[in-house]
């Protein structure tokens, strides 16, 4: 009798222990995520956080991350259904694809304002601001990109006759600036921040100089509508983990260390870049800021055929409130 009773007690104790540790016993939900531009601060914090703290695992999610070059490359993985989320894709691209009926939904803001995009000159250049660029060549990445739209707005506001030149990514742009092919280069985040600190280049403008952009959400997270319909609970947990990841990135030095290491830089430079170019509020998940300006830009860039009615805008942003209470 004694052995049978003990066995019953042991089984009961095991059952209680299993119930007390649901996380340990629960199978993780796999979420396939397409990332944009690995190692930028705003685009990679969720990944740093998961590596350092397992924040997504704590919410019962196992991340499968595919890094893309961002923009359409990232977006297309969700449209085709091969990935569940595309992180930090351009707002205008997301609006354009959604309006054309692509099976995607905007689920949160990720970058509001464009303080991380900046323009610079060689240290000995006579140019001190965009107002000095009459007849000079100023770089942007590629036509239709956020750097293109920002530069158009900054130049229009300054009233100069600037020659705008597509130069590709930041590294190719730096080469062209240093070899004298262009007068003003562009960069994003930490790239070339060491040269800035060493005084070899000088910053002359920021994306936030474009009228209205400081409050405009320029990058968003999107998800497949099929995924959201089937696994809304998983999506809610994913976004909760994402918000915790961003909080963690601004709460200590661990994320800065990872960011600096990934970019072969120092924690001091990383901190300066984070605090000046990516203030905490710029990475809020809601609300989507200055949507009217984004729609105007999408129309001007031929991504939208015409204005969206208020109910269409509400429909487009429906999941932002659902997933970010």
């Amino acid at each position, binding site marked *: 009798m004694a052995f049978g009773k003990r066995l019953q007690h042991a089984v009961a104790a095991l059952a209680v222990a299993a119930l007390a540790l649901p996380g340990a016993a629960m199978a993780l939900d796999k979420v396939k995520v397409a990332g944009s531009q690995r190692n930028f601060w705003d685009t990679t914090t969720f990944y740093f956080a998961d590596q350092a703290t397992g924040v997504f695992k704590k919410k019962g999610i196992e991340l499968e991350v595919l890094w893309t070059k961002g*923009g*359409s490359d990232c*977006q297309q993985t969700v*449209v*085709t259904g091969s990935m569940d989320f595309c992180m930090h894709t351009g707002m205008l*691209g997301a609006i*354009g*694809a959604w309006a*054309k009926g*692509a*099976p995607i939904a905007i689920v949160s803001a990720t970058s509001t304002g464009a303080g991380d995009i900046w323009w610079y000159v060689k240290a000995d250049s006579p140019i001190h601001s965009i107002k000095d660029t009459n007849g000079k060549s100023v770089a942007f990445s*590629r*036509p*239709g*990109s956020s750097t293109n739209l920002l530069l158009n707005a900054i130049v229009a506001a300054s009233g100069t006759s600037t020659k705008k*030149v*597509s*130069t*590709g990514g930041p590294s*190719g742009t730096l*080469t*062209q600036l240093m*070899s004298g*092919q262009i007068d003003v280069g562009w960069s994003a985040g930490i790239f070339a921040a060491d040269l800035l600190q060493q005084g070899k280049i000088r910053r002359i403008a920021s994306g936030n100089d474009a009228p209205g952009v400081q409050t405009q959400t320029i990058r968003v997270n999107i998800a497949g509508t099929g995924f959201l319909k089937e696994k809304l609970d998983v999506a809610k947990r994913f976004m909760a983990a994402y918000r915790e990841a961003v909080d963690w990135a601004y709460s200590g030095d661990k994320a800065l260390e990872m960011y600096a290491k990934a970019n072969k830089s120092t924690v001091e430079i990383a901190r300066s870049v984070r605090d000046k170019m990516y203030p905490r509020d710029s990475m809020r998940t809601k609300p989507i800021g200055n949507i009217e300006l984004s729609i105007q830009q999408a129309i001007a*860039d*031929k*991504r939208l055929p015409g204005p969206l009615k208020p109910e269409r805008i509400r429909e487009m942003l429906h999941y932002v409130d659902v997933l970010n209470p």
Partner: protein
Amino acid sequence: MHRWLAPAAGFAVLVLALAALEWAASVGWVSPFLTPPPSEIAAAGWRMAAEEPLASAFFSTLGVVLAATVAAAVMGIPAGWAMYRFPLLGNAYENWVAALFSAPLILLYPLFLVLFGRGPLTIGMIGFLSGVIPVILKTYEGFTAVPVVLVNVARSFNLPESALLRKVLLPAALPTVFTGLRLCFIYTTINVVGLEYLVDVGGLGFMVGLMYDRYDIPAMYAAVTFVLLISMLGFSAAERLERRWGRGA
């Protein structure tokens, strides 16, 4: 057999394939976000022609491809002949040139941007470099494959070197030289369009990238169709030239 039968059969297969794609898209077997129906692609082509600088992009790409191909032919055919005529050169450089054939020269574009600036010259130089290699190799191969007996007979008639080249070597090597020119055209087109896509200096490659960024998938396919048109024009021209020069030789 009627001479129009083969092209008609080719065209019929193309029409059938397009009709099948149209039907598959209409019943939802193919997602329009991956491959739009051909009717939408055609409509997007018209729209692009009206709203975008499609014609100038087409002629820009065609012009760069043709210039690079002609330059590759002008430099490559004499180089291939020299490697045949002077065996020391052939033995010394054949493997080097063959190794360059597999090198991804397009990856050197940042260097070319610095050397030649952001413009058609950089695109043309990359196109030329990728196209000249098959011309050299195939010309060399064509000349070395000429039967020795033909050369010996010509020499027995005391044919001078220039006449030997013009009347014996070139006609015998012509089919292989043209294979090199066709390969040259293919590689040049791929590299020119690829680089236009990468560095945004205009042309059809740029249009493909722009439409992709705008998420205008039918227009993107329409731009790709114009790249195919350039390819077809090039092949047709090579075929006519080969026939004409083959008859003349």
